[in-house]
């Protein structure tokens, strides 16, 4: 299997934030943390565009390169996951990530960082698939059920695509050809 990827179609995104809500609700993401967020440029102006951003599950991930305790790993599907048992909350991955995606729950009253939290491509973690322990640490595991991340499944306009990189890029290519070049695609 090729690598799992997200692909955003800015022409289709209507900034409804369903992906954000679906992720937060399904994974019971802690207060103050968003694994996914919708970014809008030129808001209210001609040429306004929105994209939904989460961990990009980079093939050569910078977070993996800088982490001092090497808690990150690639699954066989190319999803970048991390072990919360090994994470020390140092924050290096946040500074290294090009998309600012690693998030840290507040662990104490003095602003100390807890274990890092980020998008898991709805792939759970190291614990037994769909177990309570896995859900508590990493959220749901839709991949184990043969399903794609909920953000992509819930996207009403299919602006957010998820899956095998070859498949989603073929879908996007077909869209671009159909609607023509020069439309901002």
């Amino acid at each position, binding site marked *: *299997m090729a690598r*799992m990827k997200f692909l955003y179609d800015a022409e289709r995104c209507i900034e409804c934030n369903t992906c954000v809500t679906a992720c937060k609700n399904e994974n019971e993401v802690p207060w103050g943390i968003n694994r996914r967020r919708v970014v809008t440029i030129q808001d209210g102006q001609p040429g306004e565009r929105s994209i939904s951003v989460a961990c990009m599950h980079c093939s050569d991930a910078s977070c*993996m*390169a800088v982490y*001092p*305790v*090497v*808690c*990150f*790993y690639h*699954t*066989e*599907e190319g999803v970048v*996951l991390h*072990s919360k*048992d*090994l994470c020390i909350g140092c924050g290096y991955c946040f500074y290294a990530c090009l998309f600012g995606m690693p998030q840290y729950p507040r662990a104490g009253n003095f602003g100390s960082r807890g274990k890092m939290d980020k998008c898991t491509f709805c792939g759970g973690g*190291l614990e*037994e*698939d769909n177990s309570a322990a896995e859900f508590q640490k990493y959220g749901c595991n839709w*991949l*184990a*059920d*043969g*399903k*794609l991340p909920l953000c*992509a499944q819930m996207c009403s306009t*299919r602006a957010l*695509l*998820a*899956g*095998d990189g070859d*498949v*989603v890029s*073929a*879908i996007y290519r*077909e869209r671009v050809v159909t609607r023509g070049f020069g439309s901002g695609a």
Partner: protein
Amino acid sequence: MPPALTTVLKIAALAAMAAGLASCRDHEQGRPLHYEQGTYGGKADTPLTEEQQRALRLRGRMQGM
């Protein structure tokens, strides 16, 4: 403080240090203590089965609408 008591205290302190260091062994901590740059040291992930991967591929193709 009498010299004998000082000696006893030193020996006790050394014994406590030795016991403390001995408890730092990897298998007693339940987590890796020695890290190799660029090598993930945690427990292994469970790979998806062929059936799960086939279902994911089908789901991916269904997005083309």
